[in-house]
């Protein structure tokens, strides 16, 4: 069984590496193939551009994307809901709200760590609320509708917070928080977010076997000795850590967690365990691609990352809704 996945893994890894390199070579105005050579020869400006501007951008594309892809797969498995996605169900929105409150109040100036913590707190509140709701009423629509309400509320509160901020630039920055961007981030942002994301990934991946058992239904999982409470805790906290820290440095990038698991599911026979790891890679691939595309399409003012992912993701979402729930989807991740 595992052996048959091998070509898929190889292809995903190769694609991911390739896109990472293309991202490093892509400047605000298209490809710059000579940059690494200039940096190698000791050109200080080229080195600065490569290490301080391109590298953090490519790294964050990979890391934030991985977090969203993995969280999407894990949440779809936990809620047994094919449409559960950090952006759609308001987790990213609440994370953005948490980060906005910390950032514009100046708390993150006093303590940089407060920025990812703010995002994580926002994401945790959202996922915990949805999980509590799911335990009371596990129907597909309930969680989705509650998530939509949560997303709208978080968006409104974010706008309110930015409007009330005395900073003259705050109001226009709502676009960043709602649509996301990786432009001009620094290695400091990578250092701030990565530790939290890594812990989040480990927590979610550690739930892979339990999620697999959960596809057989809660009772069966229970009889197999799977601790559902522990699984819920791991996925809820893990997704909050990964998505919260990611959104805090990149803004909310939608639909990555929706598209990636769905595209990869057929390759893994609808089994959650390999799908989680594959979605981790796939999220990085999709986000790196989107971030390369916005640099080519943007022109004078760069397009926001969330615009690119939504242009693909929203029609995809429509298609999923039109196709209707299928048996293989309802049970599986």
């Amino acid at each position, binding site marked *: 069984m595992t052996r048959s996945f091998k070509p898929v893994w190889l292809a995903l890894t190769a694609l991911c590496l390739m896109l990472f390199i293309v991202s490093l070579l892509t*400047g605000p105005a298209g490809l710059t193939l000579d940059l690494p050579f200039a940096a190698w020869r000791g050109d200080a*400006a080229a080195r600065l551009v490569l290490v*301080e501007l391109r590298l953090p951008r490519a790294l964050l594309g990979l890391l934030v994307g991985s977090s969203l892809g993995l969280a999407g797969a894990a949440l779809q498995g936990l809620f047994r809901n094919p449409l559960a996605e950090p952006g759609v169900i308001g987790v990213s929105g609440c994370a953005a709200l948490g980060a906005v409150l910390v950032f514009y109040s100046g708390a993150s*100036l006093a303590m940089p760590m407060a920025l990812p913590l703010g995002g994580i707190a926002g994401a945790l509140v959202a996922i915990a609320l949805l999980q509590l709701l799911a335990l009371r009423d596990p129907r597909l629509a309930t969680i989705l509708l509650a998530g939509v309400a949560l997303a709208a509320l978080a968006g409104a509160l974010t706008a309110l917070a930015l409007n009330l901020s005395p900073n003259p*630039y705050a109001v226009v*920055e709502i676009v960043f928080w709602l649509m996301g961007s990786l432009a001009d981030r*620094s*290695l400091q942002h990578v250092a701030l977010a990565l530790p939290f994301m890594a812990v989040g990934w480990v927590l979610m991946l550690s739930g892979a076997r339990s999620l697999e058992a959960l596809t057989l239904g809660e009772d069966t999982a229970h009889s197999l000795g799977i601790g559902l409470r522990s699984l819920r805790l791991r996925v809820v906290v893990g997704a909050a850590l990964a998505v919260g820290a990611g959104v805090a440095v990149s803004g909310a990038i939608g639909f990555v967690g929706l598209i990636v698991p769905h595209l990869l599911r057929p390759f893994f026979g609808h089994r959650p365990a390999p799908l989680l790891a594959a979605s981790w890679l796939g999220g990085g691939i999709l986000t790196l691609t989107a971030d390369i595309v916005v640099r080519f399409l943007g022109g*004078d003012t760069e397009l926001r990352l969330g615009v690119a992912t939504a242009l693909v993701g929203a029609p995809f979402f429509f298609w999923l809704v039109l196709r209707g729930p299928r048996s293989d989807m309802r049970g599986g991740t």
Partner: protein
Amino acid sequence: MTTAASLFAAVVILAPAAKAEPAQRIVSLNLCTDELALQLADRDKVVSVSFLANDPSLSTVAEQARGIFVNRGMLEQIVALKPDLVLAHRYASRSTTDGLRRLGYRVVEIESPQSIAATRQQIADVALAMGEVERGKALIATLDARLAALPMTAGRRPTAAIYQPNGYAFGRDSLADAILALAGFDNLAARDGVAGYARLSLESLIANPPDILVIEEGGGDQRSMAQQFLSHPALKDRFPPQARIEVPRRYWLCAGLSVAAAAELLARARVAQ
């Protein structure tokens, strides 16, 4: 349509030439008209200023504006003040100025001049509309005297870029470009083909750096993404403190004496280097 609009504006601006009576109840809706109103009229004739007039980081007349009724450009609020002259910016609070015109109020609109000559002309136009022609001439004379007193440039002109929050720069055909030239700098952004106010990517600024980076004073305030951007490690590395000149934000906002203030600050910094 555009011709009709500009004709109308011209008529509005020229109309008061007939009556030389100074305006008695002036209401200003815009930060830049606040400055002109307070510099050209007696303070007690300025009935109201815009809500930004009191903010010392934005307004060059924050001191004089203190205590004057502050408006937010709402039609009802303005009508209640019974103004005999409303000063506004052409591209701000449009619905209010349209409404005021329909109600028969005298509205004079300014634009954002993009050269020193246009700045002089605008001061003269507004002074005429206010019935304060002499004070207008005096203000222009003060401006010209301060610009003429700027230290001369000897030898090579250093290059500079005025880098604004969010990565925008002033290019050619902008007032800031004219100010840089008066202060003895070559505007890197203009040379790179930036026109007006446009985005200049961090990458191109680092790959092709000017001698001096002119940034907003207090760019250390990182409480917005726009300003945090100015303390990006790459930018810090490329432009150490001695390669930066900080200019208060209020100097770039309006065309008036702040043009001279900005040029003086930049020229002094150039000479000191």
